[in-house]
């Protein structure tokens, strides 16, 4: 894992001091709320439905047990004893007091954490593959590149007031576990013909009210050009992105309006100029960062055997444990989607348990996933049974990874001031309807995603089944869509027709799954069947 040096620490410490000063000036009336708002947002502090909400950055979703423990401590001391893990691999707290925020940030800084640029119209936390460094299919660990971009984007003076927020994702495998193509800039690490590692750039993806799949603008950016190329992409956007309408201000609209080719031409021209300025870090810097992401000290004699005689354990292994690149090891997914629970929420006690388990069983490392789950990336197979038992005790062993009850759901109208409808009660009702694991397994991989408003924080456009909550004359109403994907088979879901009320949407989801069960061929997933048979049979079942 990356470790701060004196420079990283001094930058984070200086930001704490700066924010303390900004809060004091706000409380003293020296700056207005309009002036303060972008300052607090760029430090992750929102004014939400019930109170201030603080979003803490978890760069590329990676953290150690000490940091995880700190997150539990923050929840206990400054909040209401729980946290919410987000689709951007961050954590947020719903009841933070403004005047206590500087002290909280100081505690975070003591474990090399911060809330810098987790909101606002700037470059946000860089997200990545939750299996980075553990997956057999990656060409390299994407996190050194993500860390380099984290540093480059932190307090970037030219890009602190962009037309709109800006999200990067970096992956390094063909399988896309990070919804890379649905980011403002998606980067896939690849090798070129000469065997050198470089970055494939996709620009202009995103969800929100106008979902777009990011087109590729460059198939290979060498490591030495990474920063210059990113600067060029951002500069064209900063200069020409729309600022007249916040709903058209994301880079996807610029790329769409200019056309991919014209946007690319402008970027390449800007890049040619920027490259002359010598802005890129020395080669040694990426090498230095990469040394922090070496393989842990695996037991090379660890056995690949696994005793699955306990049937409940076998169910969990079968669903939540994934192959590791190292013989004798496995990737363990901890579902934060208990049946009837709140997707992504974890109590302080559970956060502590996960921290302890990471220390005992996963070389002190945890990951947060964009699907709002936690991963222990490097677990010895012979430890899996003990791990599972401890997870089970803490109610963290729900065996539902990638099944219908493993939903992404935004906080919705229960917490969010932008929401039009509640998301969580719908998620709870659907999970309860499909509570039986056998029933869920029969449906196989089924990604259900729920947003409580058009901003699409719940990724409904990318759901095999997507649900969008809307406000219909003051009453919550839910639109169903089908056929989306945020993975390597990326696609945008299509709406089925008129919406449903809260109970109606649960029935509609069940009807859609019944159509799938009737129509599927071979080992097709829900989304495969939908793509083959189209919308018609689903519409018929839903509306006739």
């Amino acid at each position, binding site marked *: 894992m990356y470790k701060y040096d004196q420079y990283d620490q001094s930058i984070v410490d200086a930001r704490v001091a700066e924010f303390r000063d900004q809060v004091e000036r706000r*409380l003293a009336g020296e700056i207005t*709320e309009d002036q303060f708002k972008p300052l607090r947002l760029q430090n992750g502090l929102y004014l939400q*439905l*019930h*109170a201030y909400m603080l979003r803490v950055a978890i760069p590329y979703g990676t953290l150690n047990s000490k940091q995880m423990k700190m997150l539990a401590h923050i929840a206990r001391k400054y909040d209401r004893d729980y946290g919410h893990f987000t689709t951007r691999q961050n954590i947020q707290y*719903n*009841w933070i007091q403004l005047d206590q925020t500087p002290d909280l940030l100081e505690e975070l800084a003591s474990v090399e954490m911060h809330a810098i640029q987790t909101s606002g119209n700037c470059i946000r936390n860089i997200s990545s593959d939750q299996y980075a460094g553990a997956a057999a299919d990656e060409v390299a660990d994407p996190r050194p590149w993500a860390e380099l971009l984290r540093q480059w984007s932190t307090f970037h003076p030219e890009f602190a007031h962009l037309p709109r927020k800006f999200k990067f994702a970096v992956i390094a495998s063909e399988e896309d576990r990070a919804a890379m193509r649905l980011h403002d800039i998606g980067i896939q690490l690849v090798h070129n013909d000469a065997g050198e590692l470089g970055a494939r750039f996709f620009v202009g993806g995103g969800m929100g009210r106008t979902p777009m799949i990011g087109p590729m603008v460059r198939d290979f950016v060498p490591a030495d050009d990474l920063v210059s190329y990113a600067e060029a992409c951002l500069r064209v956007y900063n200069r020409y992105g729309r600022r007249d309408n916040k709903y058209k201000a994301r880079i996807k609209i610029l790329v769409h309006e200019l056309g991919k080719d014209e946007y690319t031409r402008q970027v390449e021209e800007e890049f040619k100029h920027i490259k002359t300025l010598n802005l890129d870090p020395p080669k040694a810097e990426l090498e230095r960062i990469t040394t922090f992401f070496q393989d842990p000290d695996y037991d090379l004699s660890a056995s690949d055997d696994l005793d699955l005689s306990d049937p409940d354990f076998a169910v969990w292994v079968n669903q939540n444990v994934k192959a590791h690149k190292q013989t004798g090891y496995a990737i363990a997914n901890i579902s934060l989607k208990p049946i009837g629970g709140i997707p992504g929420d974890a109590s302080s006690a559970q956060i502590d348990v996960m921290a302890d388990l990471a220390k005992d069983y996963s070389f002190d490392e945890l990951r947060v996933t964009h699907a709002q789950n936690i991963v222990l990336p490097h677990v010895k197979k012979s430890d899996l049974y003990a791990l599972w038992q401890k997870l089970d005790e803490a109610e963290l062993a729900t065996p539902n990874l990638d099944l219908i009850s493993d939903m992404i759901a935004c906080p919705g109208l*229960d917490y969010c001031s932008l929401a039009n409808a509640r998301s969580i009660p719908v998620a*709870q009702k659907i999970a309860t309807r499909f509570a039986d694991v056998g029933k869920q397994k029969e449906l196989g991989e089924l990604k259900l995603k729920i947003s409580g408003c058009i901003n699409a924080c719940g990724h409904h456009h990318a759901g095999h089944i997507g649900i969008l909550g809307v406000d219909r004359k*003051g009453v919550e109403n839910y639109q169903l869509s089908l056929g989306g994907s945020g993975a390597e088979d990326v696609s945008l879901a299509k709406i089925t027709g008129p919406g449903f009320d809260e109970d109606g949407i649960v029935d509609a989801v069940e009807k859609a799954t019944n159509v799938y069960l009737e129509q599927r061929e071979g080992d097709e997933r829900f989304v495969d069947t939908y793509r083959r048979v189209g919308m018609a049979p689903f519409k018929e079942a839903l509306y006739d």
Partner: protein
Amino acid sequence: MKLLTGNDLKSGLVTWWTGEDWSINIEDAVDVGEQGEAILTAEEAARRVNSPYIIDGDEISGTPRPAHIKDRVRALGPTVRSDLTLKPNDASAIDKVV
């Protein structure tokens, strides 16, 4: 009726205008009639409230009830965590929001 609501500047908690001060309990809220804008401007300038706004409401058995569900959720707390609402022991409170 017209109600005035916002958040406490320091704590961020949802507050309601009581006629002379701000309360976290909507039961204390008063109808501000046509005075909303004036109160809001003065109170915001004095930093006794953050981001206040005026909403429509009705009076139901002596208690103000916001017209929109969003402000009813604000008045109570998250409907999915009754333990964190202002009425953790009132099972019917959440039903009244929806």
